[in-house]
C-alpha cells in the first residue's frame, strides 16, 4: 500500500556533487515554505567539489518538526552510483522518481515502491544544445515534475525564480520554461498528485529561513565586531563569509567609502586567534570562526587569553573529528575541548545555540560577555544548524541596546586619580578593570603577560600572588553564571522522576521525541542547557529527578562529563545517550534509546506501553 500523507513526509534528493542541484533543491524547499508548510532541509555532502555523491533531504512537517526524521518517503534518484543504498532507505510503500532515459532493470527496484520514471536526459537533449544548460535545466525540470506530483503551487515556484534572478532577468524565462516542461510532462504521464503531497496550510507564520552560520555572521555585525581574523575550514567558512558580506552592506562609511571593519584571512588558525587577541587587547571587538581542528591549534593562545584576561569570541562550528575525520558531517564533540581549552587550569564560557535565531542572539551576546568577563567566549554551533537552512523566529534587536564594553578605565578616570590595578578585584566579582593601550600619558599602562604577576601587573613568580590571581579567576567564572543564557525547562504533562538534558542542534529532534514519548506514556521533564558555566538551575534539575538522560551528539558523553565534574553529580544519576555517526540525531533514535533505557530499568511490564 503506497504511503498516504499530506504535509508530513520526507523527500530525499540523491545528486552528484557539482551538478548544480543545490539551488534547484533549495527552490523546491522554499516553495513548500511559501505554501505555509514548514520544511527543514539538510545537505549531506562529501569533502569534495565535484563528482562524489551528495544528498539533499527535505523534511516536510506541518506539525513543525525540524529535526532529521530518518528514511525517505520519496526518493529523487539522480545518482546511479548510490542507487542501491538510496532505494533501501525508502520507507515501505514509498515512491521513487528517477531518470528513465536509460532502462533500469526491474530488479533494481522494490516491489512495494511506486515507480515514477521520467526521461529527463532525453527531454534535455531534445530541448537544449548547450551541455551546461542540459545539466542545469535538468534540475529545474525535475522540480517542475515534483510540483505536479506533490501538488506544489507552481505560482510559488515561479515567484521564487523571479526573486532569485532579479537583476538577471534574461535567466527568468528559460527557467520558467524548464519548470513548465517538467510540470506538463508529469501531469500528462502520472496520476498527480501521488499519495504523499502538499496542501496549503498556515503553519509557517512569521518564521524565517536561514543558515545558522549566516545568522551568526549577522549577529557579529549587530554585536559590534570590527575585526575578524579567520582561516578557511569546513563547516565554519560561510560564517566568516557571511560577516564579510553583511559588513560590505552595512558597515561602509557612506561619506568616505571606507570600511568600519577589518577582515583578515590569516595564514593559519594560530595567527587568526593571535590577531583576535591583539585586537581585543587593544579595545576592538574581534572574533574568529573555526571548527574542531582549528580549536586544537589555538589552544596555547586560549590559555594566554584566559590568564591575561583578554576578550575573544570564537565560533566553533563543530564537525566530526579529527582533521581527516568526517569534516562534512555533524557532531557536538568539541564540548570538553572548548570548555577546558589550553594548558594549566583554564575554564571558558560556552554558549550553545539551538537554531539560527539563537546563533544570531548568542553571537551578539558573546561580544558583551567577552568584554564583561575579559575572557574567551566560545559559541558552539555545529554543521547541522550552521550550514543548513532552518526555520526560526524572526531576528530581533533592541535599538536602545548599548554594547557592554565591561570594566574599562578611561583617561578621565585615570586623570581623576582612580586607583588602577590591572588584576585588582575592586567590586568583589572577580572582574578587574582594564585600560586600552594609549589611554593616558602617565597612568594606566601595564605589562600584559600570563600569570607571573601581582594585582598591579608587576612581574612576580611568587606563590601567594599566583594563588591570589587564580582564586580571583574562579570567582570571575562564578560571576559569569548570572550573565550567560540560562537553561530552558520544558515540563512533562504530569509529575515524573525522569529528566533529560540536551543542548544545541539536538533541540528539534528532542522536542519531537518528547511528544512521541508522551504519547507512549513516558513522561520526561526536559532541560535545555544554553551555556557553560552551569547555573544552579541545572544542578537543581538533576537533584529533582531520580534519573536524568543526557542526549548529545558525541561518543563519550562530553556534556555529561562536564555536568558531573562541574556540578558534582554522581555518575550513576546521569545516563548518557550518545549519537555520533555524523548524521544529525533523530526523534526516532531518541525515542527508542530512551524507551529502551526506561524499559530496561523498569522491567518488561511497561514494554507494551512503550513503542
Amino acid at each position, binding site marked *: 500500500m503506497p504511503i498516504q500523507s499530506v504535509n508530513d513526509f520526507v523527500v530525499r534528493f540523491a545528486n552528484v556533487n557539482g551538478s548544480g542541484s543545490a539551488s534547484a533543491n533549495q527552490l523546491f524547499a522554499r516553495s513548500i*515554505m*511559501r505554501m505555509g508548510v514548514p520544511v527543514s532541509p539538510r545537505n549531506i555532502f562529501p569533502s569534495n567539489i565535484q563528482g562524489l555523491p551528495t544528498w539533499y533531504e527535505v523534511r516536510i512537517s506541518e506539525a513543525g518538526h525540524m529535526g532529521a526524521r530518518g528514511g525517505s518517503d520519496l526518493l529523487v534518484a539522480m545518482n546511479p552510483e548510490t542507487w542501491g543504498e538510496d532505494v533501501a532507505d525508502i520507507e515501505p510503500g514509498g515512491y521513487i522518481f528517477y531518470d528513465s532515459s536509460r532502462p533500469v532493470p526491474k530488479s533494481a527496484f522494490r516491489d512495494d515502491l511506486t515507480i515514477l520514471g521520467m526521461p529527463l536526459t532525453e527531454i534535455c537533449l531534445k530541448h537544449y544544445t548547450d551541455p551546461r544548460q542540459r545539466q542545469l535545466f535538468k534540475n529545474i525540470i525535475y522540480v517542475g515534475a515534483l510540483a505536479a506530483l506533490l501538488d506544489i503551487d507552481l505560482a510559488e515556484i515561479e515567484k521564487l525564480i523571479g526573486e532569485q534572478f532579479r537583476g538577471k532577468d534574461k535567466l527568468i524565462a528559460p527557467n520558467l520554461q524548464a519548470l513548465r516542461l517538467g510540470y506538463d510532462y508529469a501531469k500528462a504521464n502520472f496520476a498527480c498528485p501521488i499519495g504523499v503531497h502538499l496542501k496549503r496550510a498556515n503553519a509557517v507564520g*512569521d518564521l*524565517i*529561513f*536561514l543558515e545558522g552560520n549566516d545568522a551568526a555572521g549577522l549577529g557579529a*555585525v*549587530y554585536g*559590534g565586531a*570590527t*575585526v575578524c*581574523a579567520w582561516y578557511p575550514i569546513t563547516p565554519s567558512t560561510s560564517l566568516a563569509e557571511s560577516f564579510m558580506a553583511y559588513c560590505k552592506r*552595512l558597515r561602509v*562609511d557612506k561619506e*568616505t*567609502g*571606507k*570600511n*568600519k*571593519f*577589518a*577582515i*583578515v584571512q*590569516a*595564514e593559519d588558525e*594560530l*595567527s587568526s*586567534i*593571535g*590577531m583576535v*587577541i*591583539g*585586537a*581585543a*587587547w*587593544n*579595545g*576592538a*571587538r574581534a572574533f574568529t570562526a573555526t571548527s574542531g581542528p582549528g580549536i586544537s591549534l589555538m589552544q596555547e*593562545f586560549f590559555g594566554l587569553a584566559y590568564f591575561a584576561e583578554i576578550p575573544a569570541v570564537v565560533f566553533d562550528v563543530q564537525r566530526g573529528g579529527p582533521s581527516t575525520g568526517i569534516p562534512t558531517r555533524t557532531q557536538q564533540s568539541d564540548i570538553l575541548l572548548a570548555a577546558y581549552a589550553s594548558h594549566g587550569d583554564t575554564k571558558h564560557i560556552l554558549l550553545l545555540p539551538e537554531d539560527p535565531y539563537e546563533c544570531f542572539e548568542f553571537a551578539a551576546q558573546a561580544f558583551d560577555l567577552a568584554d564583561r568577563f575579559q575572557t574567551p567566549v566560545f559559541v558552539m554551533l555545529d554543521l547541522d544548524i550552521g550550514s543548513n537552512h532552518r526555520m526560526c523566529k*524572526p*531576528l530581533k*534587536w*533592541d*535599538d536602545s541596546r*548599548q*554594547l557592554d564594553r565591561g570594566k574599562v578605565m578611561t583617561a578621565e578616570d585615570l586623570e581623576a586619580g582612580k586607583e588602577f590595578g590591572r588584576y585588582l578585584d575592586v567590586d568583589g566579582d572577580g572582574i578587574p578593570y582594564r585600560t*586600552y*593601550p*594609549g589611554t593616558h*600619558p*602617565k597612568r594606566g*599602562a*601595564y*605589562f*600584559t*603577560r600570563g600569570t607571573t604577576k601581582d594585582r598591579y601587573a608587576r*612581574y*612576580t*613568580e611568587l606563590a601567594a600572588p599566583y594563588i591570589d590571581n587564580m582564586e580571583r579567576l574562579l570567582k570571575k567564572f562564578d560571576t559569569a553564571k548570572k550573565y550567560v543564557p540560562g537553561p530552558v525547562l520544558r515540563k512533562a504533562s504530569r509529575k515524573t522522576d525522569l529528566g533529560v538534558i540536551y543542548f544545541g542542534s539536538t533541540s528539534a529532534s528532542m522536542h519531537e521525541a518528547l511528544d512521541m514519548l508522551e504519547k507512549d506514556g513516558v513522561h520526561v521533564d526536559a532541560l535545555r542547557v544554553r551555556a557553560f558555566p552551569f547555573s544552579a538551575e541545572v544542578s537543581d534539575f538533576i537533584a529533582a529527578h531520580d534519573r536524568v538522560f543526557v542526549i548529545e551528539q558525541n561518543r563519550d558523553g562530553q556534556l555529561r562529563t562536564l555536568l558531573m565534574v562541574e556540578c558534582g553529580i554522581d555518575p550513576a544519576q546521569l545516563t548518557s545517550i550518545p549519537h555520533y555517526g555524523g548524521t544529525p540525531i533523530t526523534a526516532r533514535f531518541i525515542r527508542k534509546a530512551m524507551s529502551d533505557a526506561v524499559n530496561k530499568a523498569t522491567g518488561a511490564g511497561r514494554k507494551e506501553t512503550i513503542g
Partner: protein
Amino acid sequence: MSFLPKPKFRHPAIETNDLGFTHRDYEGAISTLCAGCGHDSISAAIIKAVYELSLPPHRIAKLSGIGCSSKTPTYFLGASHGFNSVHGRMPSVLTGANLANRDLIYLGVSGDGDSASIGLGQFAHSIRRGVNMVYIVENNGVYGLTKGQFSATSDKGSKNKRGVVNNDAPIDMVSMAIELGATFVGRSFSGDKTQLVPLIKAAIEHRGAAFIDCISPCVAFNNHEGSTKSFDYVRAHNAALNALDFITPRAPISTEYEPGSTEVVRLHDGSSIRLHKIDANHNVHDRAEAMSAIHRHKAAGEIVTGLLYIDEDPQDLHTNLGTIARPLNELNAPELSPSQALLDKMNAALR
C-alpha cells in the same frame, strides 16, 4: 625573581626633549638579563631613539613573543602598554592590535628562535601584509633561556659552547624580509649604537612594515671562539653599506661626510634619513641590489649592516583593507549595530 623598578632619582639639570620628557621617562624596569647582554644595548638604543624623536611613550605599544629578547620590553618604555605573548606569535598579536587602533606606534621585539624557528610563518605573513610596525629581531644565533641550543640563524659550521658544529644552513632574515615585501629593511649590531639608533628612528617614522635584524651577541652561550655571532667576530666582519643620520625638521645635522657620498631619503612626516654611502654601489631603493649586496658580502665572509632597502612610499595593511581613518576601537553601538528596522527588512527577505 621579582619586579625591580628603577629608582626615580635624576640629575636636576637633566636634559628634556620637546615634550618635556627626560630619557628616564622612557626607561623600564631594571633588566634581569645577563650582565653584558647585547639585548640591553638594543633596549638602550630604543630608549634613546624614542626620546630623541620626542614621542609620547603612552602612544607606543611594545609586543614580544617568548625568549630573552622577548623579555626586554619590560626594560624599556615603562609608560607604554606591553604585551609578552606566545612563543613565535608576536606578529599576529601585533597585527590584531594594529587593526584595532591604527594611531599607535607598534614595536615588535623578537629573537631568532622566536622569529626564525617557531615563528617563521608569522614573521613572513606579517611582513607580506605590510603591517605598519617596527619589527626588531635581537639575533644571537642561540636559545639563551633554555641554555645554548643552536637557533635557525646559526651559521653553518659555527660552533656552540661545547664545540658541537652546526650543520644546518642558516635562515637569513633580512633577505627573507626583502623578498617578502618589507618596505624598510636594515641590519645592525647591538655594539654599534651610532648605526642602530638612527636606524630605529627611521624605522619608527616609516609607515609600513619595517624590519631590523640586530645581531646581539649572547655573552652566556654564544660569545666564544668559533661562534659567528660573538662580539669579536661581528666587529671583525661587519661590512656597513652605509652610515645614516636621522634628521627631523627640528634637529640640526651633526655629522659631516665627504661631498658626493651622501643621499637624502625623505620620509612622510617631513623627516629624512641622510645616508652616507660606504659602499658606493649600494642603491637602497633597489630590492635586487639589496639582495645581491647581502649575498656578495656573505660570500666574502662579511655581514652587511646599515639600511639595506627602503620604499619611501609604502602601502600598509590598513590602506589595503580600506579601513576608516578613525581607530576601529573608538567606534561604538550607534555606528556598529544596525537597526531593528533593517533587521525587519532582512527578516522579510528570508521568508
